[in-house]
């Protein structure tokens, strides 16, 4: 096998493909990580083109709408970041981009809240989906924090008033010692660096968990004894989702 093609002096892709996944390499950390990832989330599970027939309600749209709105939030936020925090106060184009940013946040939070309550009333934590639920709630909390620091970073009357009011709540918990809502520099860093990183990470994890466990099945129907399909739940058994 020639891994390097002598003509192009570049690795031959066909040979690399053949070399990948060889049994003798199975103890490599890289191979183990890849194999575990592919086993847990094969492409058809990661991006499925079919869903169970019960996935037929408008409520399912709000999860993907939340992500779509998050992309608009990040995109408009990037434009504001490129020109700096003063730009939108002195430029009509900047003010318009700020308006896009603000309204995308409103839609993001609206879609997320509908998604959250929809999943609550579906008891979407059932069947090994507790971590999916918790990451969803944490996503919401971090988003509230990100929006809050955005309001504090506006450098206008709203920022002044909100921070002068919010400081008492934050200070009462002791968090004010570290998280100073009247410090513009600190708040804008949280708003444009720390919290967006957290949101992207936790939302990414949440989406992966949704794909890993699939969409929760409905509660048993009328006349169907609870758990009639599996009267007992075997811990760790693939068929059962406890």
């Amino acid at each position: 096998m020639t891994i390097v093609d002598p003509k192009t002096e570049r690795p031959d892709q066909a040979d690399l493909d053949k070399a990948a996944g060889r049994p003798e390499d199975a103890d490599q950390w890289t191979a183990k990580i890849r194999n575990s990832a592919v086993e847990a989330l094969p492409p058809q599970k990661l991006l499925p083109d079919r869903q169970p027939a019960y996935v037929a309600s408008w409520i399912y749209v709000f999860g993907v709408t939340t992500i779509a709105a998050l992309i608009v939030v990040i995109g408009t936020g990037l434009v504001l970041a490129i020109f700096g925090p003063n730009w939108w106060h002195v430029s009509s184009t900047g003010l318009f981009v700020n308006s896009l940013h603000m309204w995308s946040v409103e839609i993001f939070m609206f879609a997320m809240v509908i998604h959250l309550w929809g999943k609550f009333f579906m008891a979407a934590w059932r069947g090994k989906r507790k971590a999916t639920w918790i990451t969803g709630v944490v996503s919401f909390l971090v988003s509230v924090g990100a929006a809050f620091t955005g309001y504090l970073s506006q450098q206008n009357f709203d920022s002044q008033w909100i921070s002068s009011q919010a400081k008492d709540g934050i200070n009462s918990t002791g968090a004010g010692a570290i998280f100073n809502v009247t410090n513009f520099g600190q708040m804008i860093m949280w708003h444009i660096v720390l919290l967006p990183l957290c949101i992207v990470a936790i939302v990414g994890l949440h989406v992966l968990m949704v794909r890993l466990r699939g969409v929760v099945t409905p509660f048993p129907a009328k006349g169907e004894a609870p758990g009639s399909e599996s009267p007992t739940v075997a811990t760790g058994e693939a068929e059962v989702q406890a």
Partner: protein
Amino acid sequence: MSAETHKKTRPFKVDRDATTWHGRYEKYDLAKEFLISFVVVCILVAGLAVIFGSPDDKPVTVKSWSNADAVDFAQTALTELDNSSPTAVYGPPYNLNGTAQSIGPLSPAKWLGVHHPIDTANDYVLGPLSTLPNAPQVQAAIAEYKSASTSQQGTWTTAYGKAVANATYTDGKLVVPPGDYGPVTTLIAAETAMARSGALDGALLSSRQFYGTDYTKPLLFIANGAYLANLANKQNLAGTQWGMMNETGQYPGQAWLWLYTLWYQVPPMKTSSNADLQVFSLMIVLTALLALVPFIPGLRSIPRWTRLYRLIWREHYKEVEPTDRA
């Protein structure tokens, strides 16, 4: 022994477990759904931005405040000088002059102590005034005030405090009814003039470094006056007006903070001196309950009891449940 015998089993719990789907699967184009959602969101956002825009009311500066309401500024400056302003008696994280909020023996602000030290007399009045060039009268007044006993300072500031309530600002000067206020008259008059010129804004910010981004000192100073709160009241932003979740103008603001804001409107938090800590503690508990609902018996049954899931999955139940006629 087979692997089967090692498996632990427990009864199926309807609020914890989900059955495995053996029904049919249908085409579902996630990428298409995402793209349509994205386009709809973009159109909605652009439409709302064009129609409604976004608020951007100018911030209040020490200069704008002292020019709009010089008497309120002078009154506030006096409370900074005699250490009676809300910031002066706040406690942690600004100083140790006040009592941190507590619930029983728990007072987390006290545990963490002072992290943003503010000595209102020096940071807001005496310090900035000492930077004024060519002002020997002001420097003499500072020296006289500093060298006076605490009780003498108190006598001057108490008398001035009563008088300044009836002060006026005429002909470019703060006019206070005559009385024995010692150097306080000169100090507050100079402070007011410095504020109106805009020099105090710079002095409060540049006290640490050239590229300052920490507005804690000027913002707390401004918030100690009545001017900022009056403006906020006109915009329905006060705490009693659900202010935390609102913003200027007719904009939705942070509507998602409704529950947090709600607690400030109801007893005992409405009148409690520890309201902030009580509300925050309550919200931490409620948030933990929301995150941990899958583990909490009773709470995790609410979806089954409310039966809203039957509306969400109505097509599924219509299909799998026999009709009455059948």
